[in-house]
């Protein structure tokens, strides 16, 4: 009898140990670290909220926070809206559609290091983008997309969007295939055109998936790091540095473990707020919850 009562816990042991050791314990440790000064050489020294105070007076911190928000505002709407149209497009039953679905998914499986190298070619001074724009007469002189403070962040945003489109497209594809075709049939009989079908049937029926994509893409935009690290290194002049890049630099380049942890706690709080906003806002619109 006693053994039977124990059984459920036995199944939970391995997973709980991992989550405990690599999430719950580090979480508490991170909060504690954020209240200390610690450089890995000397012992950690408790300094209360000093790190947070310094953080709020640190111009670089505010700049990276600002860059992160710009990133969020630029990337999330594109990743929520464009993949809907891609999904509608590849949901048609035409010949060779499987090839196109896979082609759109290729950027998802390639590593960001490869993607960064490939896009570097597009953005180079003598690269494809400058050539195309000059040909179209939009610019007269090549622009250093990744080396100019006014364009670097936006150039990296395009890569994030490019890499995410296929992934969210597939999520929407799952949503589209769960919509009954009778609905479209009925709408067509009532004389609804293509646009009306999208706005009156597809979008409302996709609402749970739109919420999912909105949460996923905003949380991952909040944590953007790799494309920045690979393509611009945060530069020029910190113009493309984001919050996670700031945390990484403080922790692993400057060994300010306490200070970096404080910035990490801010990242956690922002992610939390963002998810709550998403669920509240989208939940109302999509009649969820």
């Amino acid at each position, binding site marked *: 009898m006693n053994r039977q009562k124990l059984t459920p816990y036995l199944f939970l042991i391995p997973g709980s140990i991992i989550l405990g050791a690599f999430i719950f314990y580090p979480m508490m440790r991170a909060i504690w670290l954020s209240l200390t000064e610690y450089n890995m050489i000397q012992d950690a020294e408790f300094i209360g909220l000093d790190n947070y105070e310094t953080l709020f007076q640190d111009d670089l911190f505010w700049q990276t926070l600002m860059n992160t928000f710009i990133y969020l505002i630029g990337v999330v709407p594109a990743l929520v809206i464009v993949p809907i149209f891609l999904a509608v497009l590849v949901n048609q039953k035409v010949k060779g559609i499987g090839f196109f679905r896979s082609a759109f998914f290729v950027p998802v499986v390639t*590593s960001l290091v490869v993607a960064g190298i490939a896009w570097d070619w597009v953005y180079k001074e003598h690269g494809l983008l400058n050539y195309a724009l000059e040909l179209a007469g939009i610019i007269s002189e090549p622009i250093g997309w990744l080396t100019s403070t006014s364009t670097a962040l936006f150039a990296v945003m395009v890569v994030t969007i490019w890499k995410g489109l296929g992934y969210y497209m597939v999520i929407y594809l799952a949503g589209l295939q769960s919509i009954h075709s009778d609905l479209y049939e009925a709408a067509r009989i009532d004389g609804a055109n293509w646009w009306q079908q999208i706005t009156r049937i597809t979008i409302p029926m996709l609402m749970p998936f739109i919420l*999912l994509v909105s949460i996923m893409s905003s949380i991952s935009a909040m944590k953007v790091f790799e494309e920045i690290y690979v393509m611009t290194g945060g530069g020029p002049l910190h113009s493309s540095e984001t919050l996670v890049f700031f945390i990484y630099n403080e922790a692993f380049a400057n060994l300010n473990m306490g200070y970096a942890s404080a910035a990490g706690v801010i990242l*956690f709080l922002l992610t939390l707020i963002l998810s709550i906003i998403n669920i509240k806002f989208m939940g109302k619109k999509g009649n969820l919850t």
Partner: protein
Amino acid sequence: MALTSVNNPKSLSTRLIGVTKKILTYILLILLTLFMLGPFLWLVSTALKSGGENIFQYPPKLIPEQLTFTNFVKVMETFPFWRYLFNSVVVTVFTVFFNVLFCSLAAYPLARMNFKGKNVIFILILSTMMIPFQLLMIPIYIMSLNLGLSNTYAGMILPHITTAFGVFLMRQAFTVIPKELDESARMDGANSFQIWLRILMPLVKPSIVTLIIFTFITAWGDFLWPLIIVSDQDMFTLPLGLNMLSGTFTSDWRLIAAGALISMAPIIIFFLILQRHFISGVMRGAVKG
């Protein structure tokens, strides 16, 4: 002729609309494919250009004047591709295996047993989704140093072998299986572990595939954590190795392009073989997750 078109004007015009729609669809699909795969085409072109050809020429040229494979040969001499590939495979295979094992073990009692603290445990597990790894990486790094886990496979693998997403996904899968199956198996003398392994696991194969795909994509492309925990080049995974390669050969773009292509080849081959599973796996994840 004139008569038939008068008799049957609708079918002709609808057919015309149908054909134009199809042509437009294909044009859109091809343009989008160029956008999604274009950067890679450029990598291929550069990697195949010989040393005598100016790769920075303006306007850019896609087709090489003289096809050559020497860049690939040269890069393989300095780029320990097989070593990096081996490391990537070890890290990914173990991460995927343990993640599937631990998540489905933990999900079983949460889906099919009643015990004290069940809801609290489930909510605790789900709450870990809200905590960004970018905050945890600082204490985990300090912890790993103390445990001697830096530059080891274990150090790269351990933090990622249980995820809330995995537990949630597997719990959903176990929940929909009729309870009678457990009961009849128990009558036949099977214990809980046997029921889990022999009866339930085979029934949730599609969800296991989904979890494998998700974990595979993240583990294979992971860059930030290996970047922090690994400094020994013998332990580099493919993204780390390529990142270093592009740092060493800053001047020779042909070699960087060849290296990038070589390092993305395994995942592309793997993806092309299993593309259906990749896409349907992500679709299932979206519906259930």
